[in-house]
């Protein structure tokens, strides 16, 4: 479990400010959800935290260590894993192979040229464990391209889990997942609570309010409020900017 801290993060694309002076601390073991309307800059923020994009200014630290300039793979080795909003898997690899690659990244060298990797029991065992946690172990031998959308989302999670993270960035893990699948997914994440720090980007308000210890609201790249789910629910500013619309629509 790590403490993930951002200080005065700024990022612009041309004249468009997508991250505007974001300062936020995710406490160890906390599930922190970031909500906000489409185009609020949530994915861009995850991209900066994971190292896919560099912020224009500001600092990101992990347990006090400055990782602002660290590359994506370097951050993974510091225990910061992520899942993608749009599924990113290796389609022609089997599900197990996808996850075994995650395990291999943290365990031992990948500069081994002779021994067949498919026979490495340790890699496969650890991969199956991560798959079981994501509820996908029964599909281990299928090619990833054969999975359904909901299963792809679980594979995303399994690949992140298999890197043995201390902090997990989940970018809309429930995107496109509905009904029982979503329910089961939320339950699974609940079960992992306390094992690592989690930053959760999510549109599904039900999931957010069930899972999150704290919630931050991002609008036009700015954090307009941070608090417990109850505080956020009752914050008039948030209701006006964001939640209000949905509740009106429901009413």
């Amino acid at each position, binding site marked *: 479990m790590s403490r993930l801290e951002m200080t005065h993060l700024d990022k612009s694309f041309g004249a468009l400010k997508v991250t505007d002076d974001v300062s936020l601390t995710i406490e160890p073991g906390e599930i922190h959800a970031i909500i906000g309307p489409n185009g609020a800059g949530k994915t861009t923020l995850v991209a900066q935290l*994971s190292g*896919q994009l560099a912020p224009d200014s500001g600092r990101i630290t992990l347990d006090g260590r400055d990782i602002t300039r660290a*590359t*994506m*793979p*370097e951050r*993974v*080795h510091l225990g910061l*894993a*992520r899942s*993608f909003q749009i599924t*990113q*898997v*290796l*389609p*022609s*690899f*089997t599900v*197990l*192979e996808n996850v*075994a*690659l*995650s395990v*291999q*990244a*943290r365990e*031992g*060298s*990948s*500069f*081994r*040229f*002779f*021994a*067949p*990797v*498919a*026979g*490495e*029991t340790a890699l*496969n*065992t650890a*991969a*199956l*464990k991560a798959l*079981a946690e994501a509820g996908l*172990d*029964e599909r*281990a*031998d299928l*090619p990833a*391209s054969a999975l359904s959308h909901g299963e792809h989302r679980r594979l995303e999670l399994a*690949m*992140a889990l*298999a*890197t043995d993270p201390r902090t997990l960035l989940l970018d809309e893990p429930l995107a496109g997942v509905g009904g029982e699948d979503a329910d089961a997914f939320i339950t699974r994440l609940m079960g992992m609570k306390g094992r690592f720090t989690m930053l959760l980007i999510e549109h599904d308000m039900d999931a957010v309010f069930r899972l999150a210890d704290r919630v931050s609201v991002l609008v036009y790249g700015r954090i307009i409020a941070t608090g417990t789910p109850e505080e956020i629910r009752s914050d008039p500013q948030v209701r006006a900017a964001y939640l209000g619309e949905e509740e009106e629509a429901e009413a």
Partner: protein
Amino acid sequence: MAETTVSAAPHRTPAIAPRVKAAAVLFVLFALVPPVVTALGDPFLVLVATRILAYAIAALALDLILGYGAMVSFGHAAYLGFGTYAVAILSSYGVNDLFLQMLGAILVSAVFAFVTGAISLRTRGVYFIMITLAFGQMAFFFFISLSAYGGDDGYGLSNRSTIFGSDMLENDVTLFYVTLALLIALFALCHRIVSSRFGRVLTGIRENATRMEAIGYAPFRYQLTAFVISGCMTSVAGVLLANQAEFVSPAFMSWHRSGELIVMVVLGGIGTLTGAIGGAVAALLLEEFLGMVTDHWQLWFGLFLVLMVLFSPRGITGLVEQIGRRKR
């Protein structure tokens, strides 16, 4: 966890895959070439076959990065050149041993591949193709300006390489079998590499580099390593070609040659290793055949390439992917 339906080991039976079987059949057929052509009264065909095997090694090496690493190197003929000139230059200094010459070729190739690969791999797609092409051309011009070794005109070798002091390679059939043995050994090596930890990472980067970074791999170092391995292996083909032709010239490293290597790999199906060998055989036999029936074989070979790309629904690469997927 104990109740999982899949056992963790050994995952995916290491039975001999169909592709390896196909390669084994090819190797057996190759081994039959010398007795057959001698019986037919065309023993000079052994040399033609040796040339094909040497190119098969080069195609195999290129497939390692093109097929498994999605790196379209258009400068691989340079490594053929390093191999051929390693023979010429070292033998002029009295170093005739085949393996020492290979070692020399491999060392030079490793350095060249490391430096040019490190620069080329900072870029993607179109840039990568053009930059490897340009570096290949740089090597080409370097050897053209080597006037001590004939420059543009090339340089005839006074003798073939020796093996532990023996001049057994002067015999065409022995040279053929040595080449075949190296091809088999390098095929086995490549097969091990693509099934290893390293190979899985390399293939993963081909499939989705962003995903690989997100689970902790820095693609550059794996791609560069593969690039260097491939360059070194190609130079071994060059050493054999110099012995086959008993002549070296910059023509071995013209950019057309690089293009032909790519054609060989693609013809046989990229990312299959066996396909690269089959492709080399097919491309060179097609060349020989067209050369026999027409003075303008290049016209027809070119037309063949264009039509092949235009009339396969998703292109040659797409075709191969489709077939690959169906097999799964």
